Structures are given as structure tokens and as C-alpha cells.
């Protein structure tokens, strides 16, 4: 039958561009490339940081120099040349003290292209936003509404100046400077990010959100997020990421630290759509991220991530369940297509009694991509009655991709209950034909099957994010069944 075949479709999609791959021409203030102590000092100086902060960065930098880049992950890539990256780039026309109305119209136009018009966000969704372009936080909306509740939500640069006692107390307590290679690098050169503090007993009335974007070529993005939920408080936090299409590989090495004190709850959701590289595997973002949260007594941390972008992803949002009865959750959808590689998962460290963790991981691989789940469930000797449930499902499309599962379990307490379930399935031609026969074309059929597969995780996302995530899944997998 000489109909419109999947080959035609694939051909058509090859020429289809990454939807977020535009580049906005905004004048940037970029540091010379390379990394040494002077650059670290210069970043700190540029940001008018206090001496303790400069020292903290230098300490991290010195540690980093002694460290080796990790190579245990199931990914292959050309190691970044850390001396060929510019470590600071700020859109020039932005002054952090300006209000939203003063923001560069070009920047606002860019958000519009991203589909996140800030104005609209303000009006329509109850979302407070902090937007980080390249390295600098551009605007934080809703500051006033939040401050009435005593909630602090601002860029971390501002927080270092305005709330040095809080930053000093908590920064690096969950992810120490020397934690790992990328975390050390981030600690030395992080340029911005978000800081959030929810006071005792306060339920944050809106979703807090940060939008990250790498705009400038030849730069890395190193943002640092620190979120402290004081006793009995609650916060839901979202982060979204995009980057323009570029031939070169761009480095993104972020650190996120969460602290949930007694009875507090943090929901942290990520939709990551960094540029994945083109269909031949050229370009794309290296996404090397350290995310970790600490739960005190009765606290709960829930990580939800939808990872569709990046050429290489190395990321394990983790929970340290230190307090008795604390709860950790990890819900993940990781999609890889073309030549993308993802090695992602979580660590659940059970230290307290009656601690509980749940891991639901959905890996979807297409094209020539490799998708790995790597997870550790560790039960400490004092963690009486700890419980874990893990489920890792993989969905494959075509015959050239790979799905891998590396679950690690270490139990030092006999009362622990650990369950692990795993499945691997493939989108079959029979499923597609069945949908076709009911009038559903192949593209839509794949979207339907993938959404069904990912449903348990999509359901965990806040409403407006779930819709965006669903669309992203469709875009990422277009034309991937062969």
C-alpha cells in the first residue's frame, strides 16, 4: 500500500525543529571562558557577596580541583572542557531591583514564546515565579503576597544579601560542597537560583515556580536552589527548564537542597526539557544535577520529575529519611529519543523508625537512546519497621534503543519490608493497528499509549504542569515508532 507511512513521517519529523529552540538576541554580560580562583572570586565580587560566601566558594573550588569526574553512570559522552566554558552570563539590561514592569521587553517576548507570559501567569494561575535566564534571576513575581505570610521567595543572590543568617545556616548542609564532582563545581561557581523559606505552620497559598533557561552560547548554567520548610509548613514547588538549539554541548550542573523540618511537607516537581541534541546526536545539554532532601520527624518530601530533554542526564533526586515516621516519594517519567542518554533514579536513605518510601519510575526509550533507572534503597540499623515500595517500568519503541534497571538494596535492619517490581514492555504494531482501526492515527495512538503508561506519575503533577508534561511527551516521541 503506497500510503503515508511511518517512514514518511519520520522523514518529516527529522526536519522539524525543537520547539523551544529559538535564541533571543539580548545583550549579555559574559565573563571570559575558563575557570580558576580569580574567576570564582570575580563571580562572588560581581554578585557583591560577603566574604564568608567567597571563602565558601573557594573552598569548593579547591576541593573540585582534586576530584575526578564520575564515570560509573551508564552514559557515554565527550567530557566537557571546563576551561572552554564561560561561568557567568547575565542579560545586561536586567537590574534585579527593577519591578516586573521594567523587565526588558525582549525578555518578556521570550517568555511569551516559551508559553509562560509572566503577566498571564500572575493573573491566571496562582503561581509565583522566579525566572533564571542564563545565570541571573530576572524577576520574582508575587513577592508581596508571599511576604505577608512571612514566606521568603527570592533569588539566592538576593537571599545571600538579605537573609545571610538563613543561607549561611542551611547552604551545603544537605549537599555538602565536596559531595560529588558536579556539586563541588556548582558550589564554586553557582551564579543564581532560588531561595525559599516557609515559616512554622504556614501553608504556602500558591505553587512556587522557577523557570530556567540557558540563552547565551558557550555558557554553563549552575543554579542553586535552597528550600527550607519550617515545622508544620507546606509548599509545592515547580521548576521548568528549556534551552535553545545549539550544535555545542552545554553544561547544566545544578544543586537543589530541601529541608523539611518536623511535620513539614515539600512537593517538588520538575519538567525538564533542555535541548536534547538533534536527530544525529549533535549538541544538547549535559544535565548533571544533584538533588537531595532531608526529612525530620513526620516530614514528607515528594519528588516528581518529567525528564524529556538533555543529551545526557545524570540525576538522582534523593531523600534522607532521618526523622521517625518520615516519608519519601519519587515519581519519575524519563523519556529518551534519538541519541539521548539518561541515567536517573533516586536514593531513599531510611534512618528513622517507621519511615516509608515509594518509588515509581517510568522509562520510555525510543530511537537509538539509552534509558537507565538507578536507585538505592538503604535501611539503616536503627530504622525499625522501614518500608519501601519500588516499581520500575520501561517502555520501548523500536529495536535500537535500550532500557536498563539498576536497583540497589542495602538493609541493615531485619524489620524492613522492601518490595521491588519491574516490567518491560514494547509498543507493538498490534496496539498501533488496533488504535488505527478505531480511527486513531499513529501519532495520536503513541501519545495515548505513552500517557496511559505514565499516568501514575502524571497524576502526581499539579494540574497545569500535567497538561504541559503531556504535550511534552507527545512532542518528544513524535515519529518514534518503527
Amino acid at each position, binding site marked *: *500500500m503506497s500510503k503515508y507511512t511511518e517512514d514518511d513521517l519520520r522523514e518529516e519529523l527529522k526536519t522539524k525543529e525543537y520547539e523551544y529552540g529559538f535564541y533571543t538576541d539580548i545583550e549579555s554580560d559574559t565573563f571570559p571562558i575558563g575557570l580558576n580562583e580569580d574567576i570564582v572570586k570575580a563571580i562572588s565580587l560581581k554578585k557583591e557577596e560577603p566574604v564568608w560566601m567567597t571563602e565558601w566558594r573557594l573552598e569548593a573550588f579547591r576541593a573540585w580541583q582534586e576530584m575526578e569526574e564520575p564515570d560509573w553512570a551508564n552514559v557515554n559522552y565527550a567530557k566537557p572542557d571546563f576551561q572552554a566554558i564561560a561561568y557567568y552570563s547575565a542579560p545586561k539590561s536586567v537590574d534585579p531591583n527593577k519591578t516586573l514592569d521594567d523587565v526588558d521587553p525582549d525578555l518578556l517576548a521570550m517568555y511569551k514564546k516559551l508559553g509562560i507570559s509572566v503577566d498571564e501567569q500572575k493573573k491566571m494561575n496562582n503561581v509565583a515565579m522566579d525566572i533564571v535566564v542564563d545565570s541571573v534571576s530576572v524577576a520574582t513575581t508575587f513577592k508581596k503576597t508571599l511576604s505577608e505570610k512571612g514566606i521568603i521567595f527570592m533569588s539566592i543572590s538576593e537571599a545571600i544579601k538579605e537573609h545571610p543568617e538563613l543561607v549561611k545556616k542551611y547552604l551545603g548542609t544537605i549537599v555538602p560542597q565536596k559531595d560529588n564532582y558536579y556539586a563541588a563545581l556548582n558550589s564554586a561557581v553557582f551564579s543564581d537560583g532560588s531561595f525559599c523559606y516557609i515559616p512554622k505552620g504556614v501553608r504556602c497559598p500558591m505553587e512556587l515556580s522557577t523557570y530556567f533557561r540557558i540563552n547565551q552560547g558557550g555558557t554553563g548554567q549552575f543554579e542553586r536552589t535552597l528550600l527550607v520548610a519550617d515545622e508544620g509548613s507546606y509548599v509545592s514547588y515547580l521548576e521548568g527548564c528549556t534551552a535553545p538549539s545549539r550544535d555545542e554541548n552545554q553544561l547544566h550542573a545544578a544543586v537543589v537542597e530541601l529541608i523539611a523540618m518536623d511535620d513539614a511537607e515539600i512537593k517538588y516537581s520538575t519538567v525538564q526539557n533542555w535541548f536534547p541534541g538533534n536527530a544525529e546526536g549533535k549538541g544538547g545539554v549535559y544535565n548533571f544535577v544533584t538533588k537531595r532532601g532531608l526529612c525530620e520527624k513526620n516530614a514528607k518530601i515528594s519528588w516528581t520529575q518529567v525528564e524529556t530533554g538533555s543529551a545526557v542526564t545524570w540525576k538522582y533526586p534523593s531523600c534522607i529519611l532521618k526523622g521517625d515516621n518520615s516519608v519519601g516519594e519519587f515519581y519519575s517519567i524519563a523519556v529518551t529519543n534519538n541519541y539521548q542518554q539518561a541515567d536517573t533514579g533516586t536514593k531513599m536513605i531510611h534512618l528513622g523508625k517507621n519511615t516509608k518510601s515509594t518509588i515509581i519510575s517510568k522509562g520510555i526509550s525510543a530511537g537509538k537512546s539509552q534509558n537507565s533507572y538507578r536507585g538505592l534503597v538503604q535501611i539503616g540499623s536503627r530504622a525499625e519497621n522501614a518500608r519501601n515500595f519500588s516499581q520500575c517500568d520501561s517502555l520501548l519503541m523500536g529495536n535500537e534503543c535500550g532500557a536498563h534497571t539498576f536497583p540497589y538494596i542495602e538493609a541493615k535492619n531485619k524489620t524492613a519490608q522492601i518490595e521491588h517490581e519491574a516490567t518491560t514492555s514494547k509498543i507493538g504494531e498490534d496496539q498501533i493497528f488496533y488504535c488505527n482501526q*478505531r480511527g486513531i492515527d499513529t501519532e495520536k495512538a503513541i501519545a495515548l499509549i505513552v500517557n*496511559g503508561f505514565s*499516568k501514575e506519575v502524571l497524576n502526581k503533577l499539579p494540574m497545569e504542569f500535567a497538561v504541559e508534561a503531556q504535550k511534552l511527551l507527545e512532542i518528544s516521541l513524535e515519529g518514534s515508532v518503527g
Partner: protein
Amino acid sequence: MLKINNLHASVEDKAILKGINLEVKAGEVHAIMGPNGSGKSTLSSVIAGKEEYEVTEGEIFFDEENIEELSAEERAHKGIFLSFQYPVEIPGVSVTNFIKTAINETRKAKGLPDMPAKDMLKLIREKAELLEIDRKFLSRSLNQGFSGGEKKRNEIFQMAMLEPKLAILDETDSGLDIDALRIVASGVNKLKSKDNAVILITHYQRLLDYIVPDFVHVLYKGRIVKSGGKELAHELEEKGYDWIKEEVDA
């Protein structure tokens, strides 16, 4: 409605259909019977437009249009429905969500807007009652963990929702107990009208006690070797297929 002329089809270069001629008019029920491996399921897949099957000779006309160039979904949009012998599972996609997507995609192809949610729910409720389908069933994942009877009932439910012009029921009776068979058959009978047509593909006469055909055809070695009225089915039930095989192979 459906006119098949000298149809030859093969899969992976193996010829399976070797010159089928068949005409089905609106309001008619045709039964296609035959021993295993005679090409019954291939015929239904070819009419529905399954890609792996290659038409090497002959034509298929639907409403006087040659449908050879049309994809499976385009044929579905024109009103061809195939009830599968082995319906596939789609985990995480509910029966309701699936049929909603199917209906709205078909409407989109015809340039119509999505069916309003209220109308959709009303239609679903109506058709579910017709087939004695429990409300809870509709929110389960499509075909996942369904019994044989539930799978087939779900196929007929989708047929009722989509209201096709031509419904091909491929071995709908296989794997059904007598109660499920009765419900499925009565559903099909209720959906029958002078404007649509049904092709029943079956190995056994049993189904034909419930859905009475106007014509019975015997398929053997990729050809229709005998046609007749409903009495032919009874003859086959009594004598089996051997006498036909002997007639043909002689």
C-alpha cells in the same frame, strides 16, 4: 456497500488470499466460515487496512470508492469497523478515554468539533446499558485483565459507540461462554439496520444461531469455494469441512 474483486493478498511474500470475490449490500449479514488457516482473519485484516498485508492483485471498493490507498484510520473514518479476535491491552487508558479519543478523532477527520462531554457521557451510558455493561467496567484500563467475554463485549460496545456502516466481527464467539455469547449477539442484533451491514467470521455454527446470516460463504485455501443461505451453515455443522475440502482438492 462492499465489493471485493479477485482479491489476492500476501504477508511476508506468502500468498494467503488467492482471488476472493464478495459483495455485501446494506442491510445484509454475511457469514464467512472455513477451517483454520483458510485465510478468514487475513481477509478481515486486509479489508481493515493492516499494513503488513500486501494486496498483490484485485480491488476492494467501499461505497464505490477504491480503498486500496487508504490507511487503516481513514477506512475507519469511512465506517469500517473490525471487532478483533484478540483485542490488545492498553494499560492506563480507560475504556471511556479510549472510545472518547476514537470518536473525537473520527469527528476531526470529518471536520467536526469534539463531541461535547455531556453528549459523550449520555451516549456512553446508553450504549453501556444496551450491552449490559457495568459502569465500573468503563473506568478500567482497556482490555487489561479482562475476561474473554469482557473483551468481546468491549469490542461490541465500541462498535455501538462508533456506529459503523460495515462491521466485521472476527471470531467474536471464540472464548465466550453461552451467557456472554447471548449478550454480545443481542447487542449486534440491536445495532443491525437496513443501512449497515455485518460480516461474521467464524469457525463454528454456534454464533449463527443468535445472529442469523443472509448468506454463508466457505473460505478454503484463500478462495470462497461455496456460497449459500443459512442452511449451508447447518450442513457444515453436521458434516464438518472435510466434504468441502474433498470437493475442492479433487
